[in-house]
């Protein structure tokens, strides 16, 4: 498939073109940047929802249940599921699709698995690009599942409009176990596996923790919702609440602030990628050797490189 053909086919909703375009974005480089630049004007239509939380909390199962509910409401759904790359081999086993089998065969759903490829923070370098491509292909809701973590993966809050933090009962008995970073990024808390003992307690703890903090600056009090992703219990409430959050963002002007934060993140990433790509070469290699030999330092070396840009 030639790259010039990709754009019109992608915008027309062609699934194979979309799949190829995401691969191109993952690879990076000039062709990828040209495509993303052309696609950008066609983005910003989808409601982008992030799902984060500890490993095994039920994120993929929840994504499946939420997507089924959005499909029932006639919204098309794109999904990007990120799993960790092995630091030893550079390979990965991406298993999130196993929980999303009920979505198979529905032309209103597109699922893409991505490996983190060395990036920390719960997403991969190209996750935001993949979201933009899926958005441009016309999907109305885009769900991102982060790598299982729950230590305050702020990357997701920069990429998603609505961030859902998933907790499970019995994650630790005191409030301390829920990290401050996660509290700050959550627009919605879901206490999944509410069929298990201790769910009420976890819900109560999260609520009382919210009361301890300062009232939310943007006037949105993140709800704490219990759910059983495996049975579908509590799912409609989450979908309703996510929808209300999107309305709140648009109405309260919060959408502008989010869009600016997202844009800044995107610009920062693009500058970094381009600058490093241009600066790599013999001079770069020589400076790396000098720093390793303690004959130079990273700060002076960076200044020297950037002067030549």
């Amino acid at each position: 498939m030639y790259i010039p053909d990709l754009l019109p086919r992608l915008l027309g909703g062609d699934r194979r073109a979309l799949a190829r375009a995401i691969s191109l974005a993952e690879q990076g480089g000039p062709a990828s940047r040209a495509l993303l630049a052309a696609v950008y004007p066609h983005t910003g239509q989808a409601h982008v929802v992030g799902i984060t939380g500890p490993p095994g909390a039920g994120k993929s199962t929840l994504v499946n249940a939420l997507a089924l509910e959005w499909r029932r409401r006639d919204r098309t759904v794109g999904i990007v599921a990120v799993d960790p790359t092995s630091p030893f081999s550079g390979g990965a086993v991406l298993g999130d699709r196993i929980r999303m089998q009920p979505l198979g065969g529905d032309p209103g759903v597109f699922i893409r698995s991505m490996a983190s490829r060395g990036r920390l923070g719960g997403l991969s370098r190209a996750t935001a690009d993949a979201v933009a491509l899926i958005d441009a292909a016309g999907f109305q809701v885009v769900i991102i599942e982060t790598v299982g973590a729950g230590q305050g993966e702020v990357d997701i809050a920069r990429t998603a409009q609505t961030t859902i933090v998933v907790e499970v009962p019995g994650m630790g008995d005191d409030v301390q176990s829920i990290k401050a970073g996660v509290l700050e990024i959550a627009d919605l808390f879901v206490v999944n596996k509410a069929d298990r003992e201790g769910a009420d307690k976890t819900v109560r703890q999260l609520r009382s923790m919210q009361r301890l903090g300062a009232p939310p600056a943007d006037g949105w009090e993140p709800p704490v919702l219990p759910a059983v992703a495996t049975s579908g219990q509590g799912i409609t409430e989450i979908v309703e609440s996510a929808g209300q959050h999107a309305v709140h963002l648009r109405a309260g002007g919060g959408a502008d602030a989010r869009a600016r934060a997202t844009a800044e993140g995107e610009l920062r990433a693009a500058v970094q990628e381009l600058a490093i790509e241009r600066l790599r070469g013999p001079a770069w290699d020589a400076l790396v050797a000098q720093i390793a030999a303690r004959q130079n330092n990273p700060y002076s070396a960076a200044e020297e490189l950037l002067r030549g840009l």
Partner: protein
Amino acid sequence: MERTIRVLVAKPGLDGHDRGAKVIARALRDAGMEVIYTGLQQTPQMIVEAALQEDVDVIGLSILSGAHMTLLPKISRLLRDQQMDDVLVVAGGIISDEDAITLKGEHGIAAVFGPGSNTNDIVGFIRTNAGIARDS
């Protein structure tokens, strides 16, 4: 820049033997590939659609149920219909030599690896043959 090889490992049909598929998934990961594992009980349609969305270079089918002569040709046919002939298809599990010859000769399966196959050989075959027909 070298592309990372992406492989879909799938179990077609009503076959619960998943040890081999998991062994292969792990071996390919350890060889630096990205493996999308879709789990049990996949129909040929589900497998081809997942391969399309994931834009994989390789589909690895693990089948020990005896239904390979109906399911595997069906998958190849669907791939042809979608113009996805550039995807390398390999299979493993309980498949007789005779069936393997037919699958390779007539149904677009590039290689068949039976019980006791060395995972290094499988990794080597995929490395050599993946993505050759791919245009971008």
